[in-house]
């Protein structure tokens, strides 16, 4: 009797095992996505969310029209018997503490296999620390602050160009302007004062010094400020030749409105991505920010091209063109999915190993990087950025000359 019971139990277990095995292989790969879905940066968060949903569509369904783009051709992840990916979105509420809590919840309760996010560098900083502690891969497609990859983390990767790449790009651009006879004697940096702005400002300061440029003014400020009149007056007083804004959306909008009210037009305005890349920036103040220069790795391209088709898919969801920041977030997820596919497993260590072995070529990407290959710190060594400028109601590529779609127009026109 006892033996029979044990045998039945074994039988049941064996059957459960047999039944579970195929089910396991087909079960979706869960990826946690931490983005600002409320708070001041929610408009950027909603864009990133829509872009990740497009990426999920590209991966999970067959899109032969998207050519060599990773995982576009077939449906699901072939390396995991066609398993689909499922994104669990979490709201970081624009605060590092909430971002950290969400990372913890996604890992321990939702049991996600990997994480992406978290838009603001200051929040990526705390959220990725949790992933590191639990040994879960964290890929950021968009956070650029330098020290994110200076912490000796083993589970953190990012595909985006980082602060130092960006600084190098700006300095090369300014050198070329100077060689062309434009006055570049003093540069002002106006930066929001969390991780993102502080980090970019610091790297810019160092890069400027190396390139022999003089940073005349630095104005750190708080991004959820109600007013920027004093900052604009300070700039108006000191008359720098170049002003570089490192801002989020609401503050970037306030700066443009206030500069018009104060009738202030610096000769060269550079807006470092984020706020200036938010689609809401163009619709709200594009008409009074003519000639503002921004960095980007995204180009919609000609009708029928892969990037054009992706933009169409995104537009259906969000109603506006894909911007660079959301595009980088989407590229990040595609790279992560490619690694999981090559790992052929959802085991964290195998995904980590596959990420380290990543070697993607430009034709497999949607962003204008030279490829994706991580160094030992987790940075993409092949990331690249070009400069774009607001001309009319859109951004056009203007620098370097090789990738320019329109001539660079200076000085800054404003309105």
């Amino acid at each position, binding site marked *: 009797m006892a033996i029979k019971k044990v045998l039945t139990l074994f039988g049941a277990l064996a059957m459960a095992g047999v039944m579970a095995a195929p089910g396991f292989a087909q079960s979706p790969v869960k990826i946690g996505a931490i983005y600002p*879905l*409320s*708070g*001041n940066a*929610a*408009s950027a*968060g*909603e864009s990133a969310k829509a872009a990740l949903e497009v990426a999920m569509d590209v991966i999970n369904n067959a899109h032969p029209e998207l050519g060599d783009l990773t995982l576009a051709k077939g449906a699901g992840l072939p390396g995991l018997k066609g398993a689909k990916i499922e994104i669990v979105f979490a709201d970081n509420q624009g605060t590092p503490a909430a971002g950290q809590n969400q990372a913890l919840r996604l890992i321990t309760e939702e049991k996600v296999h990997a994480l992406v996010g978290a838009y603001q560098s200051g929040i990526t900083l705390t959220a990725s620390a949790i992933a590191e502690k639990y040994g879960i891969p964290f890929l950021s497609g968009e956070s650029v602050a330098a020290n994110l990859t200076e912490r000796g983390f083993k589970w953190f990767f990012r595909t985006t160009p980082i602060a130092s790449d960006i600084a190098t790009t700006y300095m090369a651009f300014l050198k070329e302007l100077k060689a062309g006879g434009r006055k570049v004697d003093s540069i002002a940096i106006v930066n929001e*004062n969390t991780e993102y702005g502080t980090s970019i400002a610091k790297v810019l300061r160092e890069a400027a010094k190396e390139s022999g440029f003089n940073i005349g003014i630095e*104005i*750190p*400020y*708080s991004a*959820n*400020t*109600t*007013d*920027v*009149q*004093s*900052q604009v*007056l*300070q700039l*108006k*007083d000191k008359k720098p030749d170049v002003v570089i804004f490192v801002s989020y*959306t*609401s503050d970037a*909008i*306030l700066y443009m*409105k206030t500069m*018009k*009210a*104060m*009738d202030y037009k610096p000769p060269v305005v550079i807006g470092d991505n984020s706020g200036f890349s*938010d*689609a*809401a*920036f163009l*619709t*709200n*103040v594009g008409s*009074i920010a003519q000639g503002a220069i921004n960095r980007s790795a995204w180009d919609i391209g000609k009708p029928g091209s892969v990037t054009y088709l992706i933009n169409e898919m995104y537009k259906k969801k969000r109603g506006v063109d894909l911007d660079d920041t959301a595009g980088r977030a989407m590229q990040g997820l595609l790279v992560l999915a490619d690694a999981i596919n090559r790992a052929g497993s959802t085991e964290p260590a195998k995904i980590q190993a596959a990420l380290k072995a990543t070697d993607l070529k430009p034709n497999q990407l949607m962003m204008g990087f030279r490829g994706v290959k991580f160094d030992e710190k987790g940075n993409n060594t092949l990331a690249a950025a070009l400069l774009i400028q607001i001309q009319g109601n859109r951004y056009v590529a203007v620098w370097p000359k090789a990738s320019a779609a329109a001539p660079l127009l200076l000085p800054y026109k404003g309105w």
Partner: protein
Amino acid sequence: MSVTILQLVVSGVLLGALYALFASGLTLIWGMMNVVNFAHGDFVMLAMYTTFVVWKTLGLGPAASVPIAALLMATVGIVVYFALVRHVMRGPMIAQILGTFGLALFLRYAVFWYFGANFLSLPDNLVGGTFDLSGIRIPAARLLAGAVALLVTAGLHLLLTRTALGSRMLAVAEDQVAAQLMGIKPHQMQAVAWGLAAGATGIAGALIATFFYISPTVGETLVIVAFVTVSLGGFGNVPGALVAGLLIGVIESLSAYWIGPVYKDIVVYSLFVAVLWLRPQGLMGKT
């Protein structure tokens, strides 16, 4: 240099007028009726969206959107009083706080859901241009908001101090039972106060929208200053809130320029604490 200082003061006054305008209505509800309305900022936000919709659908500027937003928000205020505030006022203080805080979140996320998180703006030529007084720039939209802040303050002040309706509202605020014995209907007076206060937020929102961005969280960004403005000016003192608003605006403007924008809040809040330490009733509050 002196032009810069003058410009800083002018900008500060205009910023202060924005704060005072934003706080108007809060003085009435919090300062007079003794109810903390955490949804105040979101009332203003709602009025800003109303202004946007009026412009988008009818193509009309503040001349139309100010009365429309004021009427709409006054209605919202009265409805909120009868549907929510009247009930939570019977409970402890914490019920008021959580009740209006819940309302704030409800309004904020309803707007999130309906309009999305996108930032919106009215075209910046809706209230025409900027005056240039020998180098000092005064944007017309901000000047208009400042002028209306003065009018709203004067109106509310006169209403409360010079009219029978005002006296009845104050009586209810002071002693509900005694007022009732004198034949005043407390619910009616409270509802009028909520209607007036919310109507003022309607005017404020409609004007602020002409030069500020519009987003579901814009109320959250501005409301803290409004609470500071009311308590610095003195509870129950409408002109006090205007003076406090202007003071905060000018101090922010000057300290952001001289000490740095990151530190302006330290200066403002140090002053705030110092004033409350010396005069807990606020600058112009009664003892």
